[in-house]
């Protein structure tokens, strides 16, 4: 089985726990990070290979303000196809970056079964036993056939900390680079893939105000309980 992980610590930890003898674990990052710290960290944690995709065109897809998430998904899907990865692990509810729709979007392009906000996963034969987070701290248990894609919830496991020797060793390992050409992607293809075009960026306007909750403290408490139940009730 070939596992592919975007360089997220929690997704990586899940992948390392799932890896069996003979499996290959590949860490992928799409970006222009010059020193490749994320890759070295992934290698030090235990990934077998690291692949980096970068092309200046990526910065332009979707206009200013960062790479469009759906254009990124097209890149991720192309790498998964090229590498013929059986299981893809991505972040969900990632706090560091707002890219937690990219994985699920790639699953759509690849026509693979997927699960979002996964808090537990095990291999059972050819299948994956997955715990998907529901509201109220509950979870749904699912069995998914591979190939599949899982978005692993940030904070749902304890990523291992590589020791210094592993970090030093990782710094000496090569990071393979892939360009858009090798993935069969063009500027036009990325532009079509993009979900939206950013026309302008402006500073956050603080004058947007909260929807008011009026009334006595008792009425406010009642509304808070209602709003909390809306988000988390079983």
């Amino acid at each position: 089985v070939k596992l592919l992980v975007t360089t997220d610590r929690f997704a990586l930890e899940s992948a390392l726990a799932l890896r069996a003898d003979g499996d290959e674990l590949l860490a992928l990052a799409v970006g222009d990070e010059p020193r490749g710290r994320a890759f070295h960290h992934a290698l030090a944690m235990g990934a077998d290979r690291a692949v980096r995709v970068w092309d200046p065109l990526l910065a332009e897809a979707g206009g200013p303000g960062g790479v469009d998430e759906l254009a990124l998904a097209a890149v991720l899907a192309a790498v998964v196809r090229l590498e013929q990865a059986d299981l893809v692990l991505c972040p969900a509810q990632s706090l560091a970056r707002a890219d937690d729709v990219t994985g699920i979007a790639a699953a759509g392009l690849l026509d693979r079964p997927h699960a979002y906000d996964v808090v537990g996963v095990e291999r059972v034969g050819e299948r994956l036993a997955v715990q998907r987070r529901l509201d109220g701290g509950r979870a749904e248990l699912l069995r998914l056939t591979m190939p599949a894609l899982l978005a692993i919830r940030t904070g749902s496991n304890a990523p291992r900390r590589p020791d210094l020797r592993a970090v030093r060793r990782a710094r000496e390992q090569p990071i393979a680079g892939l360009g858009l050409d090798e993935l069969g992607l063009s500027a036009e293809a990325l532009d079509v893939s993009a979900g939206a075009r950013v026309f302008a960026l402006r500073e956050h306007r603080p004058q947007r105000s909260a929807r008011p909750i009026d009334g006595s403290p008792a009425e406010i408490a009642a509304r808070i309980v209602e709003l909390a139940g809306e988000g988390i009730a079983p």
Partner: protein
Amino acid sequence: VSDVLVLAEHRRGELRPVGRELLGAAHALSEQGLGPVVLATIDAEAEANAAQAAVGALLAERLPAVVLAAHGRGALGFAPALAARGGYGFARDVTAVNWERGELRAERGVYGEPVRELGFPGKDTVLLLLRAGAFDPVDPRGAELEQIELRPTPDARVRHDGYLDRPVEARDQALGEADFVLAAGRGLADEGAQGIARMQRLADRLEATLAVSGALVEGGLAPGVRKAGISGRRVAPSVYVALGISGAPQHLAGIARSHTIVAVNRDPDARIFEIAHYGAVADAFEVLGELERRLG
């Protein structure tokens, strides 16, 4: 002109309240010149692959101009896949949407990031995930509109295997992964550690995780591991209820990705109201007392 489709989640047949905000946004688009509003409802806990197929079939049949769903765990589980696969326009964290001179415009952004003004050239259907609290609600009962109830059929590749009612990490879990956070700020410091202890008991009863603002940590009233914010723990729960927090920038940036923020503060100019989705100007202790009374 094509329809405006509202994709609203229900729980045991009852529409989630945020659905009324989706309808409000949809009616505004309709009044700006888009077609009639159609309300499609789906079980909030529908399995994502099955939901994707059911909604995908509806979109292929109806070809709506816009699909509005709530930015939350439900739609995040399948809407990106649907949009990528169908070549639809897509945006998350949407706080404004308008139909101007025959074109759809939207804005997205969370606190701490610049606001992005979006267009969707070349997209006949656009799927938007709207932030709670950003749109005026409309009651579906008064409005005359077509309603469709989606009943997803299971995906052959995904088998439902039951539920876990209390996953191990559910109760009082680490802040960074909490799904429901009850947060205390300076407004609850007057009673010293007593106020924080009351909040902890309330959090236990609500099965929430307790967080505090930096002021309480600095005041020695709570340990640093409870601190939410850039200089503490970043959080992204479904619900963040803040009592007596005025909102230092580092705190606001650290909680900005929460799906629904409810804030109570005595000061109507408190900065937390700039980021909260729902806000009450009131004394935090009085509201805490009423919450305790309600929950026994």
